[in-house]
């Protein structure tokens, strides 16, 4: 039995050769002989000590989201036609439009939901991944909080997509005025979905693994 001298880790299930099912939460004994397909005796879910392949899955989603963030901001998200005059707006030009027209509240909401939150999420996730891969012991509690915050606020970025969807459906006044969705919305939605998947595939327990003295057994 390899018990860490560190008081924090004395009671971890992994140290006692146990793990729990990620789906139903049942505590299960780990098989002594490494096996590839281990299932929960209660619900049949796949058992693993950490989310499988967490680091490369999260990186893949984060990198893809970073790439899609560029066309999401450069391509128009709405094409407004008013009396035959059509105007294409990107996310930022929409924010500036609302600011100029005096709607500071709406401008602020769109700016936070569509620009601040996605950038913050991408930065936080990349930072967490770097720190986990370097087995950093730096401020684990703050990093765990940061992860939970990222996971919680992620879905709110979808707000912009919903705003466009509702506008497209509502403003259909024929020749007078119409609003159409621009190609940027698709890429923006892809960014939001990919960052949400990235937050899901990231295993926050990897933050704590670096604190364990004997962590060879954790890399399952």
């Amino acid at each position: 039995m390899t018990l860490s001298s560190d008081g924090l880790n004395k009671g971890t299930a992994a140290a006692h050769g146990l793990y729990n099912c990620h789906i139903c939460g049942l505590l299960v004994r780990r098989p002594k002989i490494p096996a590839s397909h281990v299932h929960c005796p209660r619900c049949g879910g796949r058992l693993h000590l950490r989310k499988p392949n967490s680091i490369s899955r999260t990186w893949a989603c984060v990198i893809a989201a970073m790439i899609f963030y560029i066309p999401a901001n450069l391509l128009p998200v709405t094409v407004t036609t008013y009396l035959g005059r059509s105007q294409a707006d990107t996310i930022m030009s929409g924010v500036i439009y609302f600011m100029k027209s005096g709607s500071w509240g709406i401008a602020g909401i769109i700016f936070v939901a569509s620009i601040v939150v996605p950038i913050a999420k991408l930065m936080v996730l990349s930072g967490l991944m770097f720190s986990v891969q370097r087995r950093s012991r730096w401020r684990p509690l703050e990093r765990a909080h940061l992860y939970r915050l990222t996971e919680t606020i992620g879905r709110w970025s979808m707000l912009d997509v919903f705003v466009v969807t509702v506008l497209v459906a509502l403003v259909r006044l024929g020749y007078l005025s119409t609003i159409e969705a621009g190609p940027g919305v698709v890429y923006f939605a892809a960014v939001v979905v990919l960052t949400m998947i990235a937050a899901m595939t990231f295993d926050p327990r990897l933050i704590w693994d670096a604190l364990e003295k004997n962590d060879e057994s954790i890399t399952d």
Partner: protein
Amino acid sequence: MNPSPTDSVSDLQEAVPAPAISRGRRFSIVWLIPLIAVLVGGWLAIKAWRESGPTITIMFKSAEGLVPGKTEIKYKDVTVGKVETIQLSEDLSQVLVTATMSREVANYLTQDTLFWVVRARVAAGEVTGISTLFSGAYIGVAPGTEGKPIYRFDGQEKPPSVLPDTPGRSFTSRRRSWAHWISDRRSITVRSGWDA
């Protein structure tokens, strides 16, 4: 022989050779996601780069009805460019309109290319540009035919009465007696087929 099953397992573990442990496949399928992102992003970038044409400057007397970032340049009602900025010339006598043109017309921006602002006009005997009352003014262009591409143009104040691609021959009348029914230096088109 020890009857305990755990001991027999540990005996066995020492007796038989350890398995060769490989790290599994190196390339995880999730990396297809960023790969697709790179492909899509690259395709968009190439498309944008291929479609972007030259930037030109057109000089007009006035920028009435022109809006930077919105006013389009049209040929045969097909959009071939967009006004980017509008500035005053240094001596304030003219307006400099910079526009990005689409790549397909890049070769036709030559010495004899004409630009003019299409806005609603009521002239002797005709009313033109009614559609611009709602849509806003746009810049009309008559593509040039010969010469090297240039990037600075003098805009016309009025649309040319005969576009260069109109079939026929153009003549200019200088006879004074026609002046009462032909307005100022107006050209008359003789349709091809009539002249012989």
